[in-house]
Each structure stands twice: as structure tokens, then as C-alpha cells.
């Protein structure tokens, strides 16, 4: 919906994060603020013959946290399910809503779900199906509605938030719990290795010498709600203001050389909007040569080249289905504090078009930010948010 006149507002009332950098949104924000980077070299992990860099969740820590939440322990839950439930639980508790009511809808963003079970599945065969993963999450909270899975490759996290907005606008729900999660496995790492897409070191988004991406594990959740436009919101509330998804119609794995789809999505999501309000752009910034070039071209073509732009991938890697949610949460924290976070790993920006990459955390003006994301299948999504004063 790119029209500026709306008869409602949609805003976030709860957030949750499970990341190698911490098990709440605030601790992860603090870690990022302090410049911590979770990427490590791994050798022999998942039985992979070749080493790789990635940010992995500690399974023991995850199990401890889950056991503290659930009296029956973690038997019967996969790592992905536990992380998704933990993140959702934090968001639901903060939102202070009753998840078992029928005015709540659960939306899961994941690219690969429990795909590692293809190697060895001690559970029932349905566990490989993404709808089943979503059902496990919804069932944990005794939610009566059929959950929705959004699986749109790397843009899933943003697409799932867009789905939440639509459910709130059209389907009569009062609350949407959006959870994004993906765990790494031999399946996913080997595939990215076969694509020669992984960096042999910590990733360097938008850097002239970037050599590829780091993958990361994580789960993130947001609870959104809908209200009348005049509703008084507490200061610091994350308000959804614009969104768009556009396809490049160009190539299934290579980003458009002209940034066509992303440019259209930026234009749609910012139509009728005074872009001088934009404090920063949180880009996808995977640190692959092609993605970052494409984003720089689209940002430049949209006339946003002077707006401070960052990528958060240097802190915790590309978290796939969680990325679009996790990065929105952290961007919201930053803007509440009036800053833009440094693009960790970037030393010398070097992209096809010149844009303003943030090398260090610094104060910013403006009350809004843009989240950009692009992925396989040629899809691009843009979300526009503001933070209430």
C-alpha cells in the first residue's frame, strides 16, 4: 500500500531476539553498539569438508533458555523451533497480549525450516514441512488460528512483516506475531559454498575488497498491532509507514545489474514521503560483490546517495529468514537513540555507485528509516518506518 492517506496505524508493541550475540533484543543491541562480531572460523562443523566463517548459536545455551521457559524440557523440539519460540515468547511478553486468543495471528518467516532433518530425521516426516514448523510455534502458545508461512528467500523477514500488516488491515486480527528463524546446517553451508558466495574471512559489506557473505543463525520476532490513526503512542514506538515488494524479472540468483526491482520498491515505499525525514537506510549489504553493487546503484538512482547507509551483516552474518526482522529491531533501537550503527567490517567503501556508507556509529537527524532487502528469485522488499518522538 503506497498511498500516504491511511485510515489506521500499524505499530510494534513487542520484540524478541535470539542471537549468538545475546538472548534479548536489548542485549544484542548493546553488543552491536559495542562493536561485537559473532562470526567465527569453523572447521569440521556439520561434517563439512571445508572450513567456513559463520555466527552459530550455542545449542546448550539455547536448550537452557528453552527449558527455563517450558517445564517439559526441550525433548521433541529442534534448534529452529526452540529459537523461534523463545523469540516469539519475548515479543509476546513485552506486548502483553494473550496469544491463545483468536484475534492473534502467527506468521513465520523461514527459508529452510528444519531442512537438516533430511540427513537424519528422528521425528515424524511432517517436521520437514514449513507449515508444520509454524504450527509447532502457534501450538506452543495455544493459538487457535492457522499460522502463515512466508518463504520468499532472503526477503522473507520483510515479506512476513508486510504479510502481518495485511492481516491486520484485511483479516480482522488485532495482533500479528511475526517470527523469523533459520538455523545453519551442512545443507545450507555447502550450498552457499558451491555458489562460491561465502567470504573466507569476516565479511566486509560495501567494501571495495569484499569477498562474499557470512551466514548466521538467529531468530527474531515482532508483535504488530493496528489502531485508529489518532491513537497516542508512547515515544519511541516503531510505526510501519510504507512497504513494497518488486521483482527484477531478470535472474533467479544474480541481482539485477541496474537495481531495477529494488529501485521500484524504494520508489513505491517512499511515494509521497519527504525523504529528508529519513535518518538512515539499513541496507541488505550481504557483502557479496553483486548484491552490494546492485544496492548502491538502486540507492543512487533513487537519489538517496547522501543518506547514511549501513549493513548489519558484519555483526551476526546473514541470518536468512530472521534477517529482515532482526535488522528492523536493531535499526529501531538505534533510531530511538538518535544514532545510525556503523557498518561493521567496512573499511574502504567501494561499490558500483557512490553512496554514503556509515563507517562509524554517529548521531543522525530525522525520524524515519528504510529497510532494504533483496534475494534469490529476483525479489526485493523495502519497508519504511518511523519512530515516534
Amino acid at each position, binding site marked *: 500500500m503506497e498511498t500516504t492517506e491511511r485510515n489506521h496505524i500499524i505499530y510494534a508493541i513487542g520484540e524478541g531476539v535470539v542471537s549468538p550475540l545475546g538472548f534479548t533484543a536489548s542485549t544484542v543491541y548493546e553488543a552491536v553498539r559495542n562493536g561485537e562480531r559473532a562470526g567465527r572460523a569453523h572447521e569440521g562443523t556439520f561434517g563439512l569438508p571445508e572450513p567456513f566463517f559463520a555466527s552459530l548459536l550455542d545449542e546448550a545455551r539455547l536448550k537452557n533458555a528453552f527449558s527455563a521457559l517450558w517445564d517439559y524440557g526441550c525433548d521433541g523440539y529442534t534448534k529452529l523451533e526452540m529459537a523461534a519460540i523463545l523469540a516469539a515468547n519475548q515479543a509476546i511478553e513485552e506486548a502483553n497480549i494473550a496469544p491463545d486468543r483468536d484475534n492473534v495471528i502467527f506468521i513465520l518467516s523461514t527459508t529452510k525450516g528444519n531442512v537438516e532433518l533430511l540427513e537424519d530425521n528422528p521425528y515424524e516426516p511432517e517436521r520437514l514441512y514449513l507449515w508444520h514448523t509454524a504450527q509447532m510455534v502457534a501450538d506452543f502458545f495455544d493459538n487457535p488460528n492457522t499460522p502463515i508461512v512466508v518463504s520468499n528467500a532472503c526477503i522473507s523477514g520483510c515479506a512476513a512483516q508486510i504479510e502481518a500488516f495485511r492481516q491486520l488491515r484485511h483479516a480482522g486480527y488485532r495482533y500479528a506475531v511475526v517470527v523469523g528463524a533459520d538455523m545453519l546446517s551442512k545443507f545450507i553451508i555447502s550450498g552457499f559454498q*558451491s*555458489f*562460491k558466495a561465502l567470504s573466507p574471512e569476516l565479511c566486509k559489506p560495501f567494501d571495495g575488497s569484499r569477498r562474499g557473505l557470512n551466514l548466521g543463525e538467529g531468530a527474531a520476532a515482532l508483535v504488530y498491532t493496528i489502531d485508529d490513526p489518532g491513537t497516542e503512542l508512547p515515544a519511541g514506538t516503531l510505526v510501519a509507514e510504507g512497504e513494497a515488494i518488486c521483482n527484477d524479472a531478470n*535472474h*533467479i*540468483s*544474480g541481482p539485477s545489474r541496474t537495481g531495477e526491482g529494488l529501485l521500484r520498491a524504494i520508489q513505491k515505499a517512499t511515494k509521497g514521503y519527504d525523504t529528508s525525514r529519513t535518518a538512515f537506510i539499513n541496507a541488505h549489504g550481504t557483502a557479496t560483490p553483486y548484491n552490494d553493487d546492485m544496492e548502491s546503484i538502486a540507492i543512487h538512482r533513487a537519489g538517496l546517495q547522501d543518506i547514511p547507509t549501513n549493513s548489519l551483516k558484519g555483526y551476526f552474518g546473514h541470518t536468512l529468514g530472521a534477517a529482515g526482522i532482526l535488522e528492523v529491531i536493531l535499526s529501531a533501537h538505534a533510531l530511538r537513540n538518535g544514532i545510525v550503527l556503523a557498518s561493521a567490517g567496512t573499511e574502504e567503501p567501494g561499490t558500483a555507485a557512490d553512496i554514503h556508507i556509515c563507517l562509524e556509529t554517529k548521531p543522525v537527524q530525522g525520524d524515519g528509516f528504510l529497510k532494504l532487502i533483496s534475494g534469490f528469485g529476483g525479489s526485493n522488499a523495502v519497508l519504511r518506518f518511523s519512530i515516534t518522538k
Partner: protein
Amino acid sequence: MKELIEELKTEIIDVLNLEGMTPADIDENAPLFGEGLGLDSIDALELIVLMEKNYGIKLANANEGKEIFKSVKVMAEYIKEHRTK
């Protein structure tokens, strides 16, 4: 060399799913990418796998492939020199 070139053509058609093509349709001197067979970046990555699987040659990145995958003939020459199986 001739034999290797023919073998390669058959393998390329097979791993890249070039439907309806026969080895005779591939000019060993024609460029594999761009104009020639119209292959794309995923095909290049699959050719890297072919080099390793069938000939024991490991290429570190796709850029190395660019020179080697110029034509079937160039590929065959490279394989002849570097093969370990």
C-alpha cells in the same frame, strides 16, 4: 585431445541439461558463455563442480573459471595439463 573434447561436450550437455543438443552442435572453439551456448553464472559454477568431480581439478573461485571456460577446446587443454584423475 580429440577424444577429451568429445567427452567434455557430452558431459557439458549432460550436467547443464542442454536439451536437444548433441556434441556435434557444440563448436569447440566457440565461446561457452555470452553468445555461444548462452550459459549463465550458475552453469559456470556447475562446470567448476564438473572439473572437480570428473578430473580432480579444484578451482577456488568463479573468476578462475572465466579464463578456463572460454571454449571447450581451452577447457580441454586446461584439463589435460592439470587433471589428477
